[in-house]
């Protein structure tokens, strides 16, 4: 298909993205977007450096290959460990999502909830979003790989601003699915959520800073896993860093035996990509298994530097960027406690139901939206908390309860940010997780 330059490794990623996006301010339609673009990202490697080009016209791929080759220094790459690490897969993977048929049907997915938010009796400002994507990626390499991957999904999001007697509170409600047939919009759960938020807004009080026992909901636990451990597992941070390699040997105990965390780009969720952007088949990677450090997330480059295997985690947010090591769907595995026991065993603590954002490397920070005081095992006073934070490793050791019940979530209208690449769709989730001590700031 392409004439790949000699004595260099080269690959081409061609992406066709179709997306529909509608947004409303209250019931008024404010955005109606349809995109159908085909773009390309080209890479050339000479054993020393990578040369990249990003273009909006795939007809120019051959020209770009030649121009990048002219910048590189061709060399004998036979036996080069990095080049040898590329998988050579061929064929088709994944399916395109089944989406609502036509503009009206798409708009109706979100609009069916409008009556719930508009008839809400309190002072509520709201906006709504519907978004769907169908993505076809073709990856072709000078080593002979040629795979076509289909993926996508759809989701809705309501941003909610509550105002009551001078007290304000912002939150959101999201639902995502890999296809319209499995999307559960949940009018009743939205209604219930509005009531909880409203009660929260009028009754929430600040909490004194200090250390508290914290219970994370499945959504919060998923974000905690993503931020606290997932990013630290991304092996690009370890290249050329012997200290981190010494500190993080595979097989070392890093958490209590009850804790296991995995990442899997073939599992359901908005991080399902089947094959990553370097042609590696995605698989389940245990980052922590029974408290033991069991794996890292890799691209071909990081795997080759660290002498490990690629894991299918090289992802680019779109055609403008090179693939870097990213998470896909990251989840804490279920534990053995009942949810009742997780809460019932807490005399005085904090329950974090939702998060508005989080970040983390060595220290993590999470920004709660809905948070509640737990007294004698019962959820009581709502709390306004700016941030929860902690040292990642110390906090893992503080986990003392994990529920059997788990749930997965996916972001809509936003995603994970790393370095310059923001908005990458990822899935996250887990059980209820109890942490003996966490800093409330």
């Amino acid at each position, binding site marked *: 298909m392409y004439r790949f330059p000699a004595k260099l490794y080269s690959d081409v990623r061609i992406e066709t993205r179709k997306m529909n996006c509608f947004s409303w301010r209250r019931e*008024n*339609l*404010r*955005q*109606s*977007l349809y*995109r159908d*673009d085909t*773009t390309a990202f080209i890479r050339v490697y000479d054993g020393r*450096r*990578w*040369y*990249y*080009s990003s*273009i*909006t*016209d795939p007809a120019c791929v051959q020209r770009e290959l030649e*121009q990048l080759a002219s*910048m590189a220094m061709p060399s004998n790459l036979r036996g080069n460990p990095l080049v040898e690490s590329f998988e050579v897969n061929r064929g088709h993977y994944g399916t395109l999502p089944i989406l609502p048929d036509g503009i009206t049907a798409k708009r109706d997915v979100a609009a069916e909830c409008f009556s719930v938010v508009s008839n809400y009796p309190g002072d509520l*400002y709201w906006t709504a979003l519907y978004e769907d994507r169908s993505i076809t990626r073709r990856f072709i390499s000078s080593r002979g790989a040629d795979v076509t991957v289909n993926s996508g999904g759809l989701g809705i999001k309501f941003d909610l*601003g509550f*105002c009551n007697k*001078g*007290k*304000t*509170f*912002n939150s959101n409600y999201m639902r995502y699915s890999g296809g319209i047939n499995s999307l559960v919009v949940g009018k009743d759960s939205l209604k219930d959520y509005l009531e909880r938020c409203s009660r929260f807004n009028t009754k929430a009080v*600040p909490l004194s*800073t200090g250390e508290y026992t914290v219970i994370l909901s499945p959504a919060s636990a998923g974000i905690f896993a993503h931020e606290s451990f997932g*990013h*630290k597992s991304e092996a*690009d*941070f370890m*290249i*050329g*860093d*012997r*200290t*981190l390699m010494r*500190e993080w040997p595979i097989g070392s105990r890093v958490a209590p035996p009850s804790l296991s965390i995995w990442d899997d780009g073939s599992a359901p969720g908005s991080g399902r990509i089947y094959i990553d952007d370097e042609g590696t088949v995605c698989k389940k990677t245990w980052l922590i298994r029974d408290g033991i450090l069991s794996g890292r997330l890799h691209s071909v480059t990081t795997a080759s530097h660290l002498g490990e295997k690629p894991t299918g985690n090289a992802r680019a947010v779109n055609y*403008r960027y*090179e693939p870097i090591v990213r998470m896909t769907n990251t989840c804490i595995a279920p534990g053995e406690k009942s949810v009742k026991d997780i809460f019932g065993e807490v005399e005085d603590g904090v329950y974090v139901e939702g998060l508005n*954002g*989080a*970040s*983390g*490397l*060595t*220290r993590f*920070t999470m*920004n*709660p939206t809905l948070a509640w005081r737990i007294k004698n095992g019962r959820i009581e006073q709502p709390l*306004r*908390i*700016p*941030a929860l*934070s902690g040292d990642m490793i110390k906090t893992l050791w503080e986990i003392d309860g994990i529920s059997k019940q788990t749930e997965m979530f996916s972001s809509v209208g936003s995603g994970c940010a790393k*370095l*310059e690449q923001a908005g990458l769709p990822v899935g996250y989730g887990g059980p209820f997780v109890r942490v003996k001590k966490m800093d409330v*700031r």
Partner: protein
Amino acid sequence: MPRVVRETFVQERHHLSIGISSTRIESVKRQHTRKVGVRAYDGRRISIAGGLGFPDTDLLWKNAVDGLPDGIGYPIVPQTDHVESLNNVGREFIQSELAEEIQIILSHFRSKYPDLIFSGKAHFENYSASLKNDSGLDLSFSTPLFRYVMRFKQRNSCSIFDGGSGTFGVNFDRNSVIKDLEQGCSGYHSFAELKKKKKLPVVLSLGYENFVLRKVLENLSSVSVFEGTSVFSPKRKELELSPDFSLLQASDSANTGFKFFDYEGTVNPNHSLTLINKGKAVRFLSDRLMAGEYGCMNSGSAFRGKYDTVPSMGLPYVQVASTGRTIKEITAGRDAVLVLMVGGGGATTDGQISFPVNLSYLLRDGEVVGRLPQINISSSVWKMFNEDYMGCSSDSLLSLSHFPAVVCEMDVEPI
């Protein structure tokens, strides 16, 4: 049949970026993107069609005009009769020169700080944008842009990063980049102490001031003001901030490389608009549609949008008005904390903020005393810009671009 106004937005970028890993060049990326959006207005609705590269504009026009019956409600006359062009001139680079410049910078840091490992990216770009319609609007802007983000870690550190720096501007100058990056590294090897929680002057610059200013801007949004969720809302007891605090929406195109018009083609006189004057909110952020809906003045803040989307109000680039003194003068006689790298952070809806700081230096009389241990800083945004506001500097921590520092008293606590 009402007259259909036709408008075209074109944005083009020629981009080159250099990736750095382990203090060496790891990658070179070139990119050319061109995005075209055409907008049809009929006085009641707007309809947009867009494409990448050099799309068939006749087809785009057909799609936009055909889409009007099902378009977005937009009962506003688009911007008319304004012709303005601004072209920043900067140093021209060729690809091999850029790699050479970055090599020299990296060699400097490799030899001067052998115990630090650097990684990051440097970007060079030629950017242009134009917005034109058949009602006399003709705006165009072009600029070179340079930006970089560089992180470092000590070889024996278990952290992923220990510090970093980054900035952007119109002009690239190797010595300025070295000087700005040195600022983060030079004080790294000496230590300062902070034993317990204290209220101290905190110097926020390098973009970290935006973390707190964002909260102010969210409250200046005309939606939150007129829906009653803002502290500046007439529905509530309107908040006044420090009389020393003034805030402007300003493109400052010559320094920042930001275009001087918003996505609706609004151009403020002198490319600047005062939002808060001496502590009192005087203008609220809006786009043309929002201004019509809420009966307020349009602030020219339609900054949320892409080439093919309906423009809408987004948070603009803002500047805090200088209070006429240097950082040294503002913090005179007091120990102060210079924030160089934060690790996340959060804010409640009502403005309580808290963020852990990975790298900060203790300043005494404007001079770096040494690196502080990991700290957490917290406050209420409304206190920071009221009784705890100390000023906005006339000088800049950076030599590459002039971005002043905001100084406020905040609670500083060792972690």
